[in-house]
């Protein structure tokens, strides 16, 4: 058995847990740990330029691979800088381990230099947290932390380590625990067979069924089961912003995304359905619209979720099923195969005829532009075509994000990397780094807005250091477009602090200053050739600054306080 210091234990335990990459930034409280990193070559450390970016990069890594992302930051400001990224991961149930340094144990509570109560600050935004008390506890804590972060409904776990617990002079026996017993933590796996039967019966009796699937289907790698299930029944399906890619967008049964900026057909089908099966989604207010009493008025609601607290939280479930999505869908598939009942084909045909009529409205039709002005939607469509729909696409928050979600048809899970729950501007670029580290050969695209990009632009330097060939497509509308859209729609067009055209940097030059390539696109006839040029530069980071129509809005858009069927379809048309 090896004798290791706390710092060495930490790194060794990460390796034993299968971690090969850590995103971090050094400082006083973690110097012992950094020294332990220096002396080994099993776990790679990536030096970011801001701790927030470390968390988002780890998050992008986690979302694209399904493995937990790992972050290492120092105490005080290092830890507080990580908070936004932890909250982002928490809201979207992303497995993440955040190791934060802490002042020496004897200094805790004295307002020591760079002391912050990290366990306290992060408490409402973590699945769990640990404060290391003794060196010998480190292997066990790491084991527990990974188990908790990655099982059940995943989430971030913080491990706060006082500096003295990593002291190179204090060595203890190291052994990585093989098993773990946690009497207070049990993970539901299979659903209750009786409940599943109730749900299957309801589905087979449905006249106007609808499937609504979310991030849970992606987290549980349940795409295959979801596709089997949906195609076996022939039912229409929609995905949430978090669930895009779990069901292939190119399949005819897919009605597009639902919710605030969902398609007309998805939202209409939701409103009018008589049986709604929710698969790993949480009836978020961006889906239901704020007044849940108007939500799916005729529907019997069946809800599959691994987290019992998500069930009947905002919308009451008629048939709750607590369990892992993949296992539950599998059992549903079995029960359907064995059932002597069948789908009501006639009713389903009438329902599909209705849905096709809604579909004909073509709610994502792009308005033609005048004078060669580029429409933002066209940019996303072009990126989709050039990357053959096979890129990893991260995004930030705003209009560009919604355009990316609406127009890049995701056929595979874990390709759409997006801060859905917290809506964190500045997420996209570092998340794209995490994706690129996980998949060095893949195309990692960040579809961003100039406002969001400015929130983590310092990561240009990280990308140069590690030669990350990310393609940044900036839909530059010279404004906080989504804010401006709300101001147009609800505040009489008073643009209070949402425009800044005169002070924007020359983004191409900014990229070039860091040694990257910058391309500016201003006219629609340049769009394809220049985007192709950008994607042809396989081993370079390219920042593509696309000047788009600054007056465009995202549609459809839910009418505030309405039902899901209540939407604005354009500046002049409402359902």
């Amino acid at each position, binding site marked *: 058995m090896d004798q290791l210091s706390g710092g060495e234990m930490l790194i060794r335990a990460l390796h034993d847990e299968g971690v090969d990459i850590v995103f971090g930034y050094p400082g006083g409280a973690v110097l012992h740990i950094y020294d332990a990193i220096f002396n080994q070559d099993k776990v790679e450390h990536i030096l970011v330029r801001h701790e927030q970016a470390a968390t988002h990069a780890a998050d992008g890594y986690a979302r694209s691979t399904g493995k937990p992302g790992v972050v290492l930051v120092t105490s005080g400001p290092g830890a507080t800088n990580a908070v936004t990224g932890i909250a982002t991961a928490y809201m979207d149930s992303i497995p993440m381990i955040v190791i934060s340094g802490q002042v020496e144990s004897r200094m805790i509570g004295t307002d020591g230099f760079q002391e912050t109560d990290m366990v306290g600050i992060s408490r409402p935004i973590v699945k769990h947290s640990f404060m290391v008390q003794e060196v010998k506890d480190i292997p066990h804590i790491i084991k527990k932390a990974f188990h908790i972060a990655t099982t059940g409904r995943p989430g971030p776990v913080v491990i706060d380590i006082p500096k003295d617990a990593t002291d190179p002079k204090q060595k203890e026996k190291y052994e990585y625990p093989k098993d773990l017993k946690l009497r207070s933590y049990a993970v539901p796996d299979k659903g209750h067979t009786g409940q599943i039967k109730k749900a299957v019966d309801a589905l087979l009796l449905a006249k106007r069924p609808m499937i609504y699937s979310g991030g849970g289907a992606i987290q549980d790698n349940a795409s295959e089961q979801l596709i089997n299930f949906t195609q076996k029944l022939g039912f229409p399906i929609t995905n949430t912003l978090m669930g895009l890619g779990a069901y292939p967008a190119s399949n005819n049964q897919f009605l597009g995304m639902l919710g605030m900026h969902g398609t007309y057909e998805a939202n209409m089908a939701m409103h009018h359905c008589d049986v709604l099966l929710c698969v790993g989604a949480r009836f978020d207010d961006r889906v239901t619209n704020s007044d849940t009493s108007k939500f799916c008025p005729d529907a019997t609601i069946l809800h599959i979720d691994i987290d019992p607290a998500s069930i*009947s939280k905002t919308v009451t479930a008629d048939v709750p099923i607590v369990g892992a999505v993949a296992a539950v869908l599998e059992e549903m598939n079995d029960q359907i195969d064995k059932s002597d009942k069948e789908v009501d084909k006639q009713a389903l045909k009438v329902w599909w005829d209705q849905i096709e009529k809604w579909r004909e409205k073509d709610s994502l039709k792009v308005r033609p532009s005048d004078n060669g002005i580029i429409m933002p939607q066209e940019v996303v469509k072009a990126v989709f075509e050039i990357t053959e729909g096979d890129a990893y696409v991260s995004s930030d928050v705003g209009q560009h994000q919604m355009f990316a979600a609406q127009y890049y048809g995701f056929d595979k899970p874990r390709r759409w990397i997006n801060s859905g729950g917290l809506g964190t501007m500045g997420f996209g670029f570092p998340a794209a780094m995490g994706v690129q580290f996980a998949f060095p050969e893949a195309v990692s695209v960040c579809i961003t807005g100039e406002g969001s990009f400015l929130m983590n632009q310092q990561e240009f330097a990280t990308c140069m250091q590690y030669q990350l060939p990310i393609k940044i497509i900036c839909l530059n509308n010279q404004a906080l477009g989504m804010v401006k859209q709300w101001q147009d729609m609800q505040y009489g067009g008073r643009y209070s602090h949402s425009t800044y055209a005169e002070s924007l940097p020359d983004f191409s030059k900014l990229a070039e200053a860091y040694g990257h390539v910058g391309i500016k696109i201003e006219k629609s006839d340049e769009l394809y050739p220049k985007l192709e040029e950008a994607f042809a530069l396989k081993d370079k980071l390219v920042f593509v600054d696309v000047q788009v129509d600054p007056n465009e809005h995202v549609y459809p858009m839910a009418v505030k306080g309405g039902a899901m069927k209540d939407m604005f379809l354009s500046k002049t048309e409402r359902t």
Partner: protein
Amino acid sequence: MRHIISVLMENEPGALSRVVGLFSQRNYNIDSLTVAPTEDQSLSRLTVTTSGDDARIEQITKHLNKIIDVVKLVDLTEGAHIERELMLIKVKAAGAQRAEVKRSVDIFRGQIVDVTSNVFTIQLTGTGDKLDAFITALGDNVVLEVARSGVSGISRGEKTLAL
């Protein structure tokens, strides 16, 4: 409706703050809270009284159960249970008042546990309602100080909250 929820949790640093934090974070109210280790030193028992409709109480218990340190819990108000709270109360007791206060203490089956020439310190246990009733019975301008323990409870019969 008022509910008494008893929670068995790991006797770990941070466990209590996670439970209390949950209530403020999700805008649930705490009417009273008691916590102490159990006969098993690795476990603490926390009892919280809160109120809300059924949906709210269901969310509260689900979220409590999600806290990693929480091992088990029970909503005592769902079944037959015994509820107790301890109150130490200091009251004015001079001259003619002394006999009258003593009478009230006897009626409520309390005990006078400390005496000065002007003050009685009384100990009383019972349900929250009983303690409230005692304070009311003492009348105005008598009470000097009140220390209440918060509600503790246990289910009747053979049902137990244990590992």
